[in-house]
């Protein structure tokens, strides 16, 4: 076999069709060429493992869509031109008083851990805020929407809603808020719900609901709220609360002006499939619905 600079890496050049079969033959002889040629041919039979690109992209998206904690600043415009001392005072003020806000958008669910180890899962279109600085002294959370909590043991833990306050020491529970509506389910431990000054104690396995100025109680059997696993379930719940959830889950606008939205329902819907979800709520009620670009019109049959 002869070597010269022209024939550097001649096998690579042959694989790349820069050197012809004939040239390689004359370089290494026919017998050797045949072996190389067979190897080249047989290499075509190998394949790389399948790659499910879409599935991976989905996983990546679900991981990067977690809400970013953002600090809502209360800096008024004049502060920008204020003297350095004022800015400094303001900085100190912000340091102590600004709240951390976490929120989810339509159809999103999101889980995170607070500094003390408390685990929170937020359902679709929900917001909660708390003060990071004063957290070690008072664990107060403001909630709009629905969230499931696994509270680490420690100081009193308060969930403040527009309807009332939920007080716990260390437990697992779910809070759902709405217009004139509050539902609290206790999955572990003991919690106290206060509405209009009236206190109710819930123990493990109990659900308390306050809807349209009416209280109700029932027992739960699950270890966690079902929405975490993709099913929204309701008991004795006003229809408008369920409709609101459908809107938040699927980013739709439900027009139900022609029906009574205050009726109480036992129902559930799959929060992955809009069509199925709408059917499972409205078909048993004997209502018709039509979907027109993100708008759902519900009417009586």
């Amino acid at each position: 076999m002869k070597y010269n600079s022209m024939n550097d890496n001649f096998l690579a050049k042959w694989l790349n069709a820069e050197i012809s079969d004939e040239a390689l033959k004359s370089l290494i002889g026919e017998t050797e060429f045949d072996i190389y040629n067979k190897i080249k041919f047989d290499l075509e039979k190998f394949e790389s493992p399948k790659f499910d690109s879409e599935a991976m992209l989905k996983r990546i998206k679900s991981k990067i869509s977690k809400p970013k904690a953002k600090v809502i600043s209360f800096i008024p415009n004049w502060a920008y031109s204020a003297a350095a001392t004022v800015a400094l005072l303001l900085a100190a003020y912000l340091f102590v008083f600004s709240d951390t806000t976490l929120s989810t958008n339509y159809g999103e669910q999101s889980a995170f851990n607070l500094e003390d180890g408390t685990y929170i899962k937020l359902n679709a279109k929900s917001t909660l805020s708390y003060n990071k600085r004063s957290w070690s002294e008072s664990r107060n959370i403001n909630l709009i929407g629905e969230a499931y909590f696994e509270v680490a043991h420690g100081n009193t833990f308060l969930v403040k809603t527009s309807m009332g306050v939920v007080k716990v020491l260390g437990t697992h529970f779910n809070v759902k808020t709405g217009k004139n509506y509050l539902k609290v389910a206790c999955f572990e431990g003991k919690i106290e719900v206060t509405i209009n000054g009236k206190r109710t104690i819930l123990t493990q396995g109990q659900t308390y609901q306050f809807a349209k100025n009416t209280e109700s109680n029932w027992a739960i059997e699950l270890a966690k709220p079902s929405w975490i696993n993709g099913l929204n379930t309701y008991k004795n719940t006003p229809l408008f609360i369920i409709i609101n959830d459908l809107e938040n889950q699927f980013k739709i606008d439900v027009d139900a002006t022609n029906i009574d939205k205050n009726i109480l329902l036992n129902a559930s819907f799959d929060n992955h499939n809009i069509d199925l979800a709408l059917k499972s709520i409205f078909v048993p009620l004997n209502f018709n619905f039509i979907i027109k670009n993100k708008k759902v019109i519900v009417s009586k049959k």
Partner: protein
Amino acid sequence: MLDNVCKPAVYESLYNKHAKDLRNYLYYKFGNLESAEDIVQESFIKLWQKCADVVLEKAKSFLFTVATNMFLNEKNHEKVVLRYQQIPQNDTNVETPEFVMLEKEYMDKLQTTLSDLPDGQREVFLLNRIEKKTYKEIADLLGLSVKAIEKRMHLALKYIREKIGNI
């Protein structure tokens, strides 16, 4: 800042362009398919987190560097095992059972030899032969010269030929 990596559409096009190459590169280099996919996922998440700091032109080398480092840091290497298509069996086939057996033996040997290719040569050789990447593309992917890729291709084929022995 028209084509910012932080833009979801730009980010997604980067994913579509590079995810598969990155997965195959990691697999050919380190052998562990599951880890390769985990690391592709982690690398893209990291790219998203750093999207403001990575210019579009550097996104690919960012991904490859991050992924390679992750693999070197945490993973044990395994053998690459590529599947090959079985010899087609049809009625007009007059091959004797012995031939079929010998052929199977030979293909298994070829498979083992590919796994045993020296590090550096293996991923280059397989990216070219299996993934049909050109030498230039591989050079860009790995930040090497075309000459260096040629050298590895040459040595890899020579290595395979020696291991295969006489057919």
